[in-house]
């Protein structure tokens, strides 16, 4: 099993959980270590309980893992909740003045910091956090200089005195630990690599910028707001018009307006906001104006659990807006993929002139991952499709030019002229229309024309399917068990497969990225020799399992589902697989042991 080290920092919102997290993340990534961070939090600005897990190691770290090696509780509540999870070799660094940890398991090192003796807590209210960071790094075998550099950057804006004060406190914690606590058995290694650390929301926003998005608008909604924040902060440098709109109905309509005028336009929301957008999605399809909508799923229905993750919006995406129309739905597999998937989606929707949905979730949107800089390459292929932006055609300015916006073609794609181009005047309508854009209701709803236009638009489905690759089966062909997932569960399923293999159960993985088109025939072909198939997903009803069955009639051997708001941990899947292979059940719902 690959070597990793995980830190858990717990406390109330407002107590400063994020800053030590950021400091650790920076030090690890600069040390050439990979990392994955996940913050379990509540919809509250001050108080409550927040638990940040940062897991690091020299190889790719794809999920939060199963164990905490170092616990830093910032209050009594955090130690009460999490100390019981620590096992032999782990440590807990805490403020001896305010926290009484109680009994820990054998081999767990309790590390009390005499905070009021080591720092002037009347001057610095978060001294305990800084002391703990220093102590922790000492025990991990990381030189103090790395911390000094990061602190200097972190507090640069506040002036040299603040930097010096924080470095001094960190140093006191570092030295105290060196003399009083036992270092971890596995000192953190160092590599030559350097990684960028980013959230899925930042990755999707950057992916949009790379794709040439010129118009981004949104209404704030967790967990999608990070996309808006990146876009707003970088808009002027990136040449992107960013607007905050009055509601999600306005958002999608504004984005479609900008797209119709000829720019790439994108917006992001969560399930509730998406529900408001669905009529607009139909407009994009009917006017054949491409738009990309990101849905960052959170636990529903309704307001649901705003700060918790779920994969519960699949059927909303499949059924969004009434009527039949071509659409593309893709779920990024990890945070690096959040970047990559956006330009791919834009090329598809520009080519096929239809709406595209990126189905992300809180786990990726707000999680953080180390990514190689080369995987954030802005030099991406851009294909705007059949777009007429200048008056190339020998068509005259006037009433009845020869240009037909919705010309019936074999591919279903009609060349799209944008407003402002002479000789291509037309009206784009949400009413059914003829090839030249005239409403068919203006001539007593002609059934022949209606059928022809429906078939024209739906012919694009064939082209879309041919433009998107089918999924691949990863791992040994003749595995004992095949785990099927979609989107964000890629990393945790991958690790579960590794653990299963180590325990003598060979496992392979089929991870779905393109949900629509699905490539059902290819999936059936891949699964036909599988010995035991299990669909793993973060929802109650098995939304993907139901979708796969509706498209292919395929029924898996079993399902693993989780709908408590927290993501899967590898052992959840491993234990469920064993339970199912032994014939105990066909449906496992792992319990989340960490109370966050």
């Amino acid at each position: 099993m690959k070597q990793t080290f995980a830190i858990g920092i717990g406390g109330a919102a407002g107590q400063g959980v994020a800053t030590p997290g950021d400091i650790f993340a920076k030090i690890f990534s600069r040390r050439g270590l990979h990392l994955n961070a996940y913050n379990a939090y509540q919809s509250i600005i001050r108080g409550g309980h927040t638990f940040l897990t940062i897991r690091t190691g020299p190889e790719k770290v794809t999920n939060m893992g199963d164990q905490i090696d170092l616990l830093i509780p910032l209050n009594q509540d955090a130690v009460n909740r999490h100390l019981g999870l620590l096992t032999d070799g782990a440590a807990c660094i805490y403020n001896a003045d305010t926290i009484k940890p109680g009994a820990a398991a054998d081999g767990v090192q309790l590390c009390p910091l005499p905070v009021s003796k080591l720092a002037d807590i009347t001057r610095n209210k978060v001294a305990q956090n800084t002391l703990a960071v220093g102590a922790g790094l000492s025990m991990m075998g990381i030189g103090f200089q790395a911390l000094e550099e990061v602190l200097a950057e972190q507090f640069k804006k506040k002036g040299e005195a603040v930097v010096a004060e924080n470095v001094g406190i960190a140093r006191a914690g570092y030295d105290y630990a060196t003399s009083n606590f036992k270092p971890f058995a596995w000192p953190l290694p160092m590599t030559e690599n350097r990684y960028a650390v980013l959230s899925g929301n930042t990755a999707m926003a950057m992916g949009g910028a790379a794709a040439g998005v010129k118009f981004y608008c949104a209404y704030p909604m967790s967990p999608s707001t990070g996309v808006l924040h990146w876009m707003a902060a970088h808009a002027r440098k990136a040449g992107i018009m960013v607007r905050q709109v009055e509601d999600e109905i306005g958002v999608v309509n504004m984005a479609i307006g900008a797209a119709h005028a000829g720019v790439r336009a994108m917006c992001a929301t969560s399930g509730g906001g998406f529900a408001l957008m669905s009529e607009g999605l139909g407009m994009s399809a009917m006017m054949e104006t491409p738009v990309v909508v990101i849905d960052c799923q959170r636990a529903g229905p309704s307001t649901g659990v705003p700060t918790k993750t779920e994969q519960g919006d699949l059927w909303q995406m499949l059924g969004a807006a009434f009527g039949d129309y071509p659409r593309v739905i893709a779920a990024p597999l990890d945070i690096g993929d959040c970047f990559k998937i956006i330009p791919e989606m834009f090329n598809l929707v520009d080519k096929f002139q239809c709406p595209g949905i990126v189905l992300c979730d809180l786990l990726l949107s707000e999680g953080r991952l180390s990514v190689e800089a080369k995987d954030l390459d802005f030099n991406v292929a851009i294909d705007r499709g059949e777009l007429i932006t200048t008056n190339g055609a020998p068509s005259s300015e006037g009433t009845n030019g020869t240009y037909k916006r919705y010309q019936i073609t074999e591919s279903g794609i009609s060349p799209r002229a944008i407003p402002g181009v002479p000789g291509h005047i037309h009206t784009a309508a949400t009413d059914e229309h003829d090839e030249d854009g005239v409403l068919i209701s203006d001539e007593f709803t002609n059934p022949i024309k209606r059928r022809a236009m429906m078939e024209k638009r739906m012919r694009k489905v064939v082209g879309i399917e041919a433009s998107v690759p089918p999924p691949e089966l990863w791992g040994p062909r003749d595995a004992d068990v095949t785990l099927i997932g979609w989107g964000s569960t890629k990393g945790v399923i991958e690790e579960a497969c590794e653990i299963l293999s180590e325990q003598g159960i060979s496992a392979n993985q089929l991870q779905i990225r393109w949900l629509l088109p699905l490539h059902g025939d290819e999936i059936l072909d891949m699964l036909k020799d599988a010995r035991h198939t299990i669909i793993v997903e973060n929802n109650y009803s098995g939304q993907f399992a139901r979708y796969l069955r509706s498209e292919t009639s395929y029924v898996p051997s079993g399902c693993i589902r989780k709908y408590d708001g927290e993501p899967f941990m590898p052992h959840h899947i491993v234990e469920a697989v064993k339970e199912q292979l032994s014939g105990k059940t066909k449906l496992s719902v792992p319990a989340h042991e960490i109370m966050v």
Partner: protein
Amino acid sequence: MATVVAAPKHLVMADLKGKVDPDWCPGCGDFGVLAAVQKALVELQIPTHQVVTISGIGCSSNFPGYINTYGMHTLHGRALAVATGVKLANHNLTVLVTGGDGDGFGIGGNHFVHTMRRNVDLLYIVMDNQIYGLTTGQTSPTSRVGMKTKSMPFGNIEAPVNPISMALAAGATFIARGFSGEQKHLTELIKQGIQHKGFSFLDVFSPCVTYNHDNTYQWFRPRVKKLEDDSAYDPANWIAAMEKSLLWGEEIPIGKFFERTDVPTLHGAEPVLNAGPLVHNAAPIPPDVSRAFVEELM
């Protein structure tokens, strides 16, 4: 590469004729609005391909199909949101938004308020007939108290909105009211609205001859009184405009209620657009900029 540029064509009324004739009921007030818009565009000589007419849904929202400009016939109530996107993507276009009172003040009320406060540079013409026509005659947000319709057969008990006061309160920078029966006056208001830099709101009494038997041409004609005829009226005075907006009954003012020119337009206030319309800027992000975006994450 040499580009052949044809000399600008002199626009005549026939150039503005759409692909199909309007299917409005004979006598509908919307015919007068269509003619006035076409006349205004001819008088201003704006090339047709540089105009986008955007509507929502309803009788009057069929407008874009009847005029030879670029057109978008969008969703019920959403025309202003779509139009904002169009204008921000290409602010060189002249954007006209057309629709009815149900579309604009009912289902689209939210976008109406916010588009005004943003001062998006477009002309919004509401063909206000105080009734829902395309759904065959129900009460609208501007129907008077007591008016009997299919949805309120015992009479409307809800107070109507006052579009002019609303526009004043929401910060529209050009506010006027016209009457479909006053062609010349209406054409002049449309011209002013197009030329105004910012959000222009034009509420037009456009009688529904089929479903509204209260607010007819005959009802309006003796009541409407042009603000322009009152030499003492100052459209720069917001308070005076608000007072005038409250007049209803025997005397109903039409004309320009209010205009101010000191508020930046939305596209004018955003430095991202200083380099010109977004749609003409196809250049990718410079490598040093994108590199810096990645560097800040390291």
